[in-house]
C-alpha cells in the first residue's frame, strides 16, 4: 500500500514538470524552507507569521515564474503568453547581511516586479503586485547570474533580524 502511494505521488510530481525545472524548484525549496524556519524562534508569533506568509507568497511567485519559463522553453520559440522570450528563470539566496549585495549590480524587488509586468503583461503577478517597499535602497534586491550560459535572476533575501524588523515596522508589506 505504501509503495503504491509513494510511487504514485512521486511519479505524478515528476511527470508534470521537467527535470531542470524540478531541480531548480527543489533547490529553491531548501532556501525558502531555511528562511521560513530561521524566522520562527527569534521574534513574536504575530511578526513571525507575517514574515512566513510573505515568504510563502514569494515562494509561490518564484515557482510560478519558473514554471512559465520552462513551459515557454518546452513550447519552442514562444507561447501564447510569451511569444518571443521566456520569462527569466529565478532563484533565491538568503543573506547574512545586505552588505553582501552590490547595490550597483542589483535592482529593487518592486522595480523588478514592475518590469516583469511591463514586459510580460500576461504574467499573473496578483499576489506580488501588492508588494510595497518603503526603504531607501530596497529591502529585497534582484541580481543576475550566468548559469551554463543562461541568465538566471537571483532574489537576495535580507538577514533574519533585518527582515522581521522591516515587516514589523511596516516598511515592507504585501
Amino acid at each position, binding site marked *: 500500500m*505504501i509503495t503504491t*502511494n509513494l510511487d504514485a505521488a512521486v511519479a505524478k510530481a515528476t511527470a508534470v514538470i521537467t527535470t531542470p525545472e524540478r531541480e531548480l524548484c527543489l*533547490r529553491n525549496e*531548501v532556501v525558502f*524552507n531555511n528562511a521560513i524556519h530561521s524566522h520562527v524562534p527569534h521574534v513574536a508569533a504575530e511578526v513571525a507569521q507575517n514574515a512566513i506568509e510573505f515568504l510563502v507568497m514569494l*515562494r509561490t511567485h518564484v515557482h510560478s515564474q519558473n514554471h512559465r519559463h520552462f513551459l515557454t522553453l518546452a513550447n519552442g520559440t514562444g507561447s501564447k503568453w510569451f511569444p518571443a522570450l521566456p520569462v527569466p528563470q529565478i532563484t533565491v539566496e538568503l543573506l547574512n547581511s545586505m552588505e553582501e549585495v552590490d547595490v550597483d549590480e542589483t535592482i529593487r524587488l518592486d522595480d523588478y516586479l514592475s518590469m516583469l509586468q511591463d514586459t510580460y503583461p500576461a504574467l499573473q503577478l496578483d499576489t506580488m503586485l501588492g508588494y510595497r517597499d518603503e526603504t531607501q535602497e530596497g529591502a529585497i534586491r534582484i541580481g543576475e547570474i550566468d548559469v551554463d550560459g543562461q541568465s538566471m535572476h537571483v532574489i537576495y533575501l535580507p538577514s533574519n533580524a533585518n527582515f522581521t524588523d522591516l515587516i514589523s515596522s511596516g516598511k515592507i508589506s504585501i
Partner: protein
Amino acid sequence: MELSQHLRDCREAQIMRAEQYFGNYVAQLAAASKFPSNLRYRAISLISALRRHVVAQIWEHYESLQLTGTSLFAAEIIPALVTSDSIDSDPESKGVPLNEYFNQLSKYTTLKTTNGILISYKSMGPDLDDTIYVRHGDRPHLHVLYLPPVLELLECILDGTIEFHDGRP
C-alpha cells in the same frame, strides 16, 4: 571518508523530496487564515522542527551506510501526507505515534539529531490517523512520517491532542 557518488545522489534526492513536502505543508499552514496567527506559528514551529530532524536523520543514515555498509542506527525517514489509502486496519502495519518513534530512536545514543528537538512531543489522540505517526516504508531502513491534513493538525494543536515543545526558548 568521502561519501560515494551513488550514496550522495540518493541522499540528495531524499532530502530534496522531504524539502518539497515540508515546503508545501508550511505554505498550507501559513494560508489557513481561519486559524489565529499564533496557532499557525505554533504548527509551523512543529513542522520546522520535524523538517530539521528528518533532514538530519537522512544525513546520518547515509553517513552510516558509507562507514559500515549498513545502517548502524537510524533508518532514513521521509514525510508523507495521511490519506484514506495510507490508513491500514492491520495493527501490525499501522506504525507508531511520533513520540513512541522518538522513544525508540533514543536507544541509538550516538544519534544526536533527536536531542532537544522534539523530546517533549506528546499525542493524546485515540487513533493514529488523527496524529503524527511513523511506519515502515517499502524497503528496509525506510521509515515514513505521516502528517495529518493541515487543518486537522491545527485542530489537534488547538484542542490539545498534540502537545510539543521543540526544545528551544
